[in-house]
C-alpha cells in the first residue's frame, strides 16, 4: 500500500496493466508525449513505445472507431476521451458498433475496449468541461459503466475494465484527480465490476451515490452526525448494477436518498429509484428522494456551485425524508 492521488492511481494502473499484457494499448489526444492533459498516461510512451501509447488525431469517433478495428486485430485498446463533453462524437461508434458488434457476430468476436474520461464539475472550467454524461452510456446495450470514487477504486476498476472481455466505460471524477489522496495497493489490483461498496454503516437512512458524489455524501453524513444514523452506498458500477447491495441497504434503513451530479430527468438516479419502487416497496418508510443537478446545461463556473448537489441540499433531503 502507498498513498496516492486519484490521478496517480490511474497512472499506476496503466503501468501495471501494460506491463502485464502486451496487447493492451493506450490511445487518445495528447496521451503520448504530453502524458495526457491530466497526466493519466504519463511515462507510458517512454516505457512502452509509440505503438502502445498512441497520440491520435483530434477525432473522438475516429479514436473509438479505429479501436473497434484494433480489437479485431487482437488489441485491447484503452481510449481516452479528453473530457466528458468532448466524448459525444464517440457515441456514434459506441451506439452503432461497440455495444453491438459481439452480438452481431453471434458472440464469436470480442471487443475488449475500454473508454475512460474525466467527468464532472466543480473545477472552474470553461463550458463543456464539466458534464456528467453517464446516462447516455449506461443506456447503450452491450456496454458496461463504472465510476470510481477513491484512488484505490480508480486503479482497481480501470484494471477490471482493461481485463474485461466486454466494452467498459470508466468515468473518473476530475474534481478529485488532485484533491483526493488515499491508500492504493501496489502492483496488480482489480476491483471486480458489479460490486457496490458500503462506505459507512448506518441504520436510519441511506445515501446512494457514485463518483464525485460519494465524498459529498460523506460530508453530509458528518453534518448529520448525532442527528441520525446514515449509511452510504457507493454504487461503483452502474452497469452491471449490484442490485443486491441496493436492496439490502434499503431493507436495512428503509429510507433512501440518491445523489447524482447529472441533470435530473432520466438520470441514473431515476433507474435506482425505479428498482427500489419495483422491489423494495414494503421495506421503504418514505419516498425515494433524489438530490441531482438541475435540468439545465452545466452553467458558467461563477454560478456552478448553485448547480452542484451540495451538503445543504443532501441534509435537507434527509431531514424531509425523516419527517415523512
Amino acid at each position, binding site marked *: 500500500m502507498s498513498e496516492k492521488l486519484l490521478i496517480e492511481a490511474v497512472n499506476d494502473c496503466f503501468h501495471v496493466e501494460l506491463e502485464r499484457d502486451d496487447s493492451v494499448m493506450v490511445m487518445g489526444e495528447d496521451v503520448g508525449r504530453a502524458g495526457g492533459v491530466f497526466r493519466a498516461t504519463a511515462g507510458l510512451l517512454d516505457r512502452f513505445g509509440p505503438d502502445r501509447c498512441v497520440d491520435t488525431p483530434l477525432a473522438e*469517433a475516429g479514436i473509438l*472507431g479505429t479501436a473497434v*478495428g484494433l480489437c479485431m486485430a*487482437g*488489441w485491447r485498446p484503452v481510449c481516452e476521451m479528453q473530457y466528458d463533453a468532448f466524448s459525444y462524437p464517440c457515441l456514434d461508434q459506441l451506439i452503432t458498433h461497440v455495444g453491438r458488434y*459481439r452480438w452481431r*457476430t453471434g458472440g464469436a468476436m470480442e471487443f475488449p475496449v475500454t473508454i475512460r474520461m474525466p467527468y464532472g464539475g466543480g473545477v472552474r472550467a470553461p463550458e463543456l468541461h464539466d458534464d456528467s454524461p453517464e446516462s447516455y452510456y449506461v443506456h447503450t446495450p452491450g456496454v458496461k459503466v463504472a465510476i470510481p470514487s477513491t484512488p484505490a477504486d480508480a486503479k482497481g476498476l480501470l484494471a477490471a475494465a482493461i481485463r474485461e472481455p466486454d466494452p467498459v466505460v470508466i468515468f473518473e471524477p476530475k474534481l478529485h484527480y488532485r484533491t483526493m489522496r488515499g491508500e492504493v495497493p501496489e502492483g496488480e489490483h482489480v476491483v471486480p465490476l458489479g460490486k457496490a461498496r458500503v462506505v459507512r454503516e448506518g441504520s436510519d437512512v441511506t445515501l446512494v451515490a457514485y463518483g464525485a458524489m460519494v465524498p459529498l455524501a460523506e460530508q453530509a453524513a458528518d453534518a448529520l452526525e448525532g442527528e441520525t444514523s446514515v449509511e452510504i452506498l457507493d454504487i461503483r458500477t452502474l452497469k452491471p448494477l449490484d442490485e443486491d447491495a441496493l436492496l439490502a441497504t434499503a431493507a436495512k434503513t428503509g429510507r433512501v436518498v440518491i445523489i447524482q451530479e447529472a441533470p435530473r430527468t432520466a438520470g441514473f438516479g431515476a433507474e435506482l429509484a425505479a428498482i427500489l419502487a419495483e422491489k423494495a416497496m414494503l421495506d421503504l418508510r418514505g419516498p425515494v428522494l433524489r438530490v441531482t443537478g438541475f435540468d439545465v446545461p452545466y452553467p458558467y463556473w461563477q454560478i456552478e456551485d448553485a448547480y452542484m448537489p451540495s451538503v445543504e441540499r443532501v441534509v435537507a433531503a434527509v431531514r424531509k425524508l425523516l419527517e415523512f
Partner: protein
Amino acid sequence: MAQVLPDERELRRVIGDGDALPDGEVEGLDGRDLIELYRGMVLLRTYDERSLVYHRQGRIGTYAIFWNHEAMQVGAVYALERDDWIFPSYRESAIGLLRGMPASTVLSWWRGHPAGWWNPVDYNVASICVPIATHVPHATGLAWGRKLRGDRTCSIAFFGDGATSEGSFHEGANFAGVMRAPVILFCNNNGWAISTPLSAQTAAETLADKASGYGMPGVRVDGGDVLAVYEATRDAVERARAGEGPTFIEAVTYRAAPHATADDPSAYIDPERVEEEKRNECVGRYERYLVRAGVLTEQLAEEIRGEALETMRQGIAEAEAEPAADPGLLFRNTYANSPSSFDEELAELREILEP
C-alpha cells in the same frame, strides 16, 4: 510523411466497346483468372436478381439491390489475398460469397434470422455495416493493428458516394493517412444516395480529389470495368504491402436499379440514363470482352450461370429450412459476461411465452 501521388482524374479503363475503343489487358491475369472473375460476377448477379424475386415472393425482407455493382466488388476482392479483410456496407451484402460464405447465410441476414450473422474471422469479412461510413474507421483500425503486429495484411472498406459526406469517412480516412494504415478506401460512386444526386453531396469536382486532403493518392476507375477495378485495387494493395499506406479508389458507375426494394426512383432518376446504363451493364460488358478475347464460350457461360442458379436454389432452401430462432437468443451474445439482470428478464419473457 506520406507521399501524395498525382491524382488520376481520368477513369481507368481496360475493356473496350467492341468498336472504336480497343480492348486492353491486365498484365499477370491469365485465362483462368479471367474466367474466375466472370464466375464471381455471375454469382453476385444471380444472387442479386434472385433476391429481388425472393423479396417479391415474401421470402426475404427489404433488400438493398446491387445490380450493376458486381464489377466493383469482384474486381476489388480478386486483387486481395485470403488473409486480407473486407469491410462491406449493405450494398456489398453478398460479398462473402466470393470467400466461400454460403448463400444461405446472407439470405438469412436479409430474412432477419440470426443464422445470417457470421463469424467475421471465418472469411475475413466483417459484419455488414448498415449505418453509413461508420465502418471506415474499423477497416483503418484493423489494418493499422495488423501492421503494428508486423503482419502484411491489408483491409478494404466499401462505401458509396453519399458516405464521403459523413464524419466517420473523414475520420477513418484521416487516421488511415496519419497511421499509414494499409487500407484501401473503395468508393462505389453510383451517383445517388437514395434520391440525392452526387451534385448535392459534394462541391468537389471528383470524389478522388478528397484523397489528397488525407495524404493519399486518389484513383478514378470505371466501376463497370471489372479489369480496370482489379488493376487499380492491385496497385493499391501493392502500395499498402510496401508500407506506403492507404489509397482511395473512386469507382464511377450509375445506379441503374432502385436503392432498395422499398424505393421508387421514378420520382427522381433520369430514365434515359438508366436505360443507357442497363445496355452497358457490367456483366454483359465483360462477357462480350471475354468472347472477343476468345476466352469464353456460350457453353461455358451457361455452365457458370447454371452453377450460380444452383447455389441460390440451395441457399434459399437452406435459409428457409432454418428452425425458428429461440427468443432466448435475445440475451445471448451481447456480453461475454452477461449481467445477472438478464436472467430475470429472460424469466419474465419465458413466463409469458410458455405459461
